[in-house]
């Protein structure tokens, strides 16, 4: 059987299934016992698994995320909810120097299997400290896997994969894609038919949402859905866009990106993270290093510019990589 689920509900199924069978998995984070985490991934788990395995913490991120790393070294698999990625600022050392590097520094003798759930992104007027994506800031750390599903099917399959991984996995979800009530009605393209049974979706494989001939549009999290909207518009104008969801930053499916650009010859990289020193540059470089001749036209980036996210709606809407900007970039590329 399968049902049509939101990402929130799909992720919860994966975690629930794994927790039922594996005592080493436990949940940690602010308000997780009563509120079930930012995306409801642990909704109802307090009642089901009790306060020993679903631990609401004080607002002490360096402490409890560092403790998760320690518990992982000691044989557990913690699942930590960090709510908003903006908060990595107060606990970054754990990500940067501890959970990500211990396996390497120990010559492979110490493992840190833990899953860090984090919400990203803006678009709902929550200003500069609660709207960032910052996925490049975590993907830049060697030793941390970073994945970023954009639909319910992948949310479930990739969470199963994360929970069975022996490494530190940063599991990102754009707040606008999760299908949680407080973000309003979910975007249709985030919903999918999700089987009852457990299944895994491997890391490091792009997902081609829709095939196209003229231009490759890569996306990540929310920008996948804006790209899909743009592709629909473009189709009416006779432009055939291929929408590719990177969905995993570390490992990154470089061959998948190259294969699409080899077909279309044109590339638009969409990214809600800041423009410079980030994923958009990485994607373009991936193709360029293989063969700059694959580009029939210079590649284009449609991202959030290098500015803090402004609060006020007219300003925020103007700087996000929304469908209108993406479609406009495609038209120019085809002109």
């Amino acid at each position, binding site marked *: 059987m399968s*049902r*049509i*689920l939101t990402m929130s509900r799909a992720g919860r199924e994966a975690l629930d299934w794994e927790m039922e069978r594996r005592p080493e998995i436990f949940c940690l984070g602010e308000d997780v016992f009563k509120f079930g985490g930012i995306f409801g991934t642990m909704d109802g788990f307090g009642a089901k698994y009790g306060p020993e395995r679903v631990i609401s913490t004080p607002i002490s991120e360096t402490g409890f995320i560092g403790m998760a790393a320690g518990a992982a070294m000691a044989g557990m698999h913690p699942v930590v909810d960090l709510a908003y990625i903006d908060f990595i600022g107060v606990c970054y050392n754990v990500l940067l120097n501890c959970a990500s590097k211990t396996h390497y520094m120990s010559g492979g003798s110490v493992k840190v299997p833990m899953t860090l759930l984090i919400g990203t992104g803006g678009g709902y007027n929550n200003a500069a400290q609660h709207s960032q994506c910052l996925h490049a800031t975590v993907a830049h750390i060697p030793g941390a896997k970073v994945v970023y599903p954009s639909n319910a099917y992948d949310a479930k399959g990739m969470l199963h994969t994360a929970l069975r991984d022996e490494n530190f996995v940063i599991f990102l979800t754009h707040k606008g894609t999760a299908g949680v*009530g407080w973000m309003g*009605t*979910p975007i249709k393209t985030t919903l999918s038919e999700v089987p009852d049974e457990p299944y895994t979706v491997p890391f490091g494989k792009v997902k081609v949402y829709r095939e196209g001939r003229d231009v490759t549009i890569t996306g990540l999290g929310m920008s996948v859905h804006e790209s899909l909207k743009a592709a629909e518009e473009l189709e009416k104008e006779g432009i055939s866009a291929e929408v590719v969801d990177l969905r995993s930053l570390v490992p990154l499916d470089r061959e998948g990106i190259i294969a699409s650009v080899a077909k279309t010859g044109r590339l638009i990289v969409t990214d809600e993270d800041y423009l410079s020193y980030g994923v958009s540059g990485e994607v373009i470089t991936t193709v360029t290093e293989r063969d700059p001749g694959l580009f029939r036209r210079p590649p284009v980036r449609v991202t959030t510019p290098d500015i803090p996210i402004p609060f006020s709606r007219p300003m925020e809407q103007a700087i996000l990589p929304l469908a209108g900007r993406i479609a406009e970039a495609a038209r120019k590329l085809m002109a």
Partner: protein
Amino acid sequence: MTTPVTIPQDLWDEDDKTGSIVVWLYKDGAEVKEGDLIAEVLVEKVTLELLAPASGTLRIKVQPEVVVNKGDEVAVIE
């Protein structure tokens, strides 16, 4: 025999508030079992669950993003 799927009077507290269907978990015409979660309902910022009152074929009458009140018939199960 058809069973109406209505928004239960006790799904949320305040009578004057309205909600909307967020997502149908099954497609129109799908087979559902009594007690299955069939839809999510949003009231202000809170997501609530709508369960199937009977087993049978789901016929959806109200799509997401339409205002619903308590007691509204949003589907039938045939």
